[in-house]
């Protein structure tokens, strides 16, 4: 009788590098992964069912908690979907739209920083992870002054945003590193002049890092599309698709920015890393344009005619935006009442996690962890 060569290993749900409570079941032949399957559901919190029992504005804080590292983008998706339900009856003021975009892009920087940091830690470099926390703290201090919350904000309202930016938070374009946690300009200048070069020198151009990520977890463009990947995973494979450009929402069509795509043509972990790093630079460009506009154009931040009780007309709507991790989308059915009849959330992480059985076989265990880091999952969003 042939002897069993493979061992079955459970990575998780309690494992140091599963980014929360994910269980990956893997078959190993020595060090090589021959088969792997993610098992999700350990963080299921019934978001979609809960939303049916809450009024429309009450759902906003729940959306924060799906992808808790990128709360503002989720709020944007939901709030915009509800506004769409009203068929133009609610007109969001321009200033509120700029604030939303600015917050979205700051959130994207924040989220990508953690994505890069935790991927570096999965590969074995501890220090970049703590550097990412250093810079995230600064963003959180700014967000705390703007919204009152550090991680989960409940800042966007149907029809605008809760409050205008506090005085002095914008700063001036000459603000330097010393004001990085006090003004938005200070942070952006610090980010461009210090953080980006530091990441490039410390990790991106590190030879060992390149050994570990180049040629690992290759995802060809057609497969990426077939698996309905989005965000950095799709763009890492060389597909230039970004909802901010292709299906502009908010005021993205007025802004000037580029869509980075993977350059090597392999669609490996390194490409995904580089796309995220470059996206942070582009986000900082967008934030700068928003800050310039916001400084010159004061105005209201809430639509004038938002009913006290939000009762969208009967109908259904599907709205999608470019979240930090990919395409976040929301499908809402309204029966004309005060609470949604059904909310369906499309989370990019759930889609990306299905790539694991495709990407992992043939690689080593260490690569499995690197691939998991490179597709950047947040379990709160996978399980909802």
């Amino acid at each position, binding site marked *: 009788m042939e002897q069993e060569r493979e061992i079955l290993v459970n990575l998780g749900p309690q494992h140091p*590098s599963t980014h929360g409570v994910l269980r990956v079941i893997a078959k190993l032949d020595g060090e090589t992964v021959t088969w792997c399957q993610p098992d999700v559901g350990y963080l299921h919190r019934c978001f979609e069912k809960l939303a049916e029992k809450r009024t429309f504005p009450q759902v906003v804080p729940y959306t924060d908690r799906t992808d808790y590292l990128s709360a503002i983008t989720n709020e944007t998706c939901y709030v915009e979907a509800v506004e769409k339900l009203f068929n133009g009856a609610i007109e969001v003021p321009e200033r509120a739209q700029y604030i939303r975009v600015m917050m979205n892009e700051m959130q994207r920087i924040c989220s990508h920083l953690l994505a890069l940091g935790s991927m570096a830690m999965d590969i074995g470099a501890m220090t970049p992870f703590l550097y990412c926390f250093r810079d995230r703290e600064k963003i959180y201090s700014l967000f705390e002054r703007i919204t009152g919350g550090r991680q989960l904000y409940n800042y966007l309202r149907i029809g605008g945003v809760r409050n205008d930016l506090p005085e002095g938070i914008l700063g001036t374009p000459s603000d330097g590193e010393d004001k990085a946690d006090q003004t938005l300009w200070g942070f952006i200048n610090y980010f461009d002049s210090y953080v980006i070069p530091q990441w490039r020198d410390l990790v991106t151009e590190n030879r060992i890092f390149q050994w570990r990520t180049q040629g690992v977890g290759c995802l060809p463009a057609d497969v990426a599309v077939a698996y309905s990947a989005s965000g950095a995973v799709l763009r890492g494979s060389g597909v230039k698709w970004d909802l901010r450009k292709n299906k502009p929402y908010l005021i993205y069509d007025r802004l000037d920015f580029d869509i980075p795509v993977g350059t090597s043509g392999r669609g490996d972990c390194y490409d995904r890393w580089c796309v995220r790093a470059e996206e942070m630079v582009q986000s900082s460009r967008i934030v700068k344009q928003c800050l310039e506009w916001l400084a010159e154009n004061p105005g209201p931040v809430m639509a004038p005619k938002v009913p006290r009780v939000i009762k969208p007309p009967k109908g259904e709507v599907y709205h999608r935006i470019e979240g930090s991790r990919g395409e976040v989308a929301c499908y809402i059915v309204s029966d004309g009442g005060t609470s949604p009849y059904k909310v369906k959330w499309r989370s990019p992480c759930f889609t990306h996690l299905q790539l694991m059985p495709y990407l992992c076989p043939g690689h080593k265990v260490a690569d499995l962890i690197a691939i998991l880091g490179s597709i950047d999952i947040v379990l709160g969003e996978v399980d909802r």
Partner: protein
Amino acid sequence: MVEFWQSLPALLQTWLIGIGKAALFLTWGLLNFCVLLMLDRKISAWMQNRVGPWRVGLWGWIQPFADLFKLFIKELITPSNVDRPLYKLAPFLSFVPAVLPWLVIPLIPNWTPTDLDIGVIYLAAIGGFDVIAVFVAGWSSDNKFSLLGAMRGAAQMISYEVTLVMSIIGVVMMTGSLRLGDIIAAQNAQGLFGWFLFPQIIGFLVYLIGSQAELNRAPFDLLEADSEIVAGYMTEYSGFRWGFFMLSEYLHQAAWAAVATCLFLGGWSGPSIPDILWGLGNLLNGFGALPNAVGNAIVGAGDAIGFLDVGVWGILTGIFWFVFKMYILIFVSMWVRWTLPRVRVDQLMDLGWKFLLPVSLFNICLTGILRYAAVSLDGLPIQLGSLTIRLLGLWI
């Protein structure tokens, strides 16, 4: 006191001296462990914008002792399916080879706890011994992660053992002796530039990289890669059994740095305070060509405290330089550890067998050729070298 000592039988004297030496050098080794534990945390904190341990004792320096005490009072959990005798034996198997190198390392000039003729071979032999502990721990734990860690450990430590030994052969060829004391003395004979660091720079670099892998330190810490295989071979260990593994890891690191100091950095040799003054004075005097008041005054000051150069003071200077060089190497190792990502297991093997081993073999050839040239040219290169040293006027 002396009479009482002499009245003891000779055998008892030998035993007492032996026990005394052993106690002294084990304490010195363990002291290194505490300092290293703290340094590792402080240096990592410093590199990562953190503060590190700060509360316990002055600047947190009691922290390692508190950590050890905590480990000591923790429950020793033995999972139900383990191979009990081996599971309990493994921590000690790991500890013993970590302590043994200290027996041949000459910290004090001309005085070694056990002055073995085959010091270098002894070090290589016990260096290959700790792989047994790793494998026993990983196998007996009955855990898949432990087994993976042990598998990696066996492959990694055995392959890097070869590289490591090859990298120090050059030093042995230059000295013609395997005794660590002789190796240091051979380096001292020619001052700073006699350190084998310079002629054996290839060997030194290979040793530096190879020993990181042999010690399982990052970027080669595949055995306990926390993001991949939880804690590798130590996954099922807790309390002081785990503490023994940690203890031996740090002791190994300190021992590695001490051996490197002996082999490549001239051991205890280094200028004493009068040496520095004399050297500086000579330099100012243009090596006797341009005697002037300032230079003479500095030489005079050196003469005045010349007693610092001999006796107990000389020994203390030696200890200072030894520890100083050792900790520089340890700092470099920690610096690397907290900067670089981890390599993958196949890349590690490639690096060891396909790059480091050929390079160290090349180094052996080069050393042999140069040595043959030096002998056949009647020591001309050596004389040229020493002339250079004299011109630099460091330790004349």
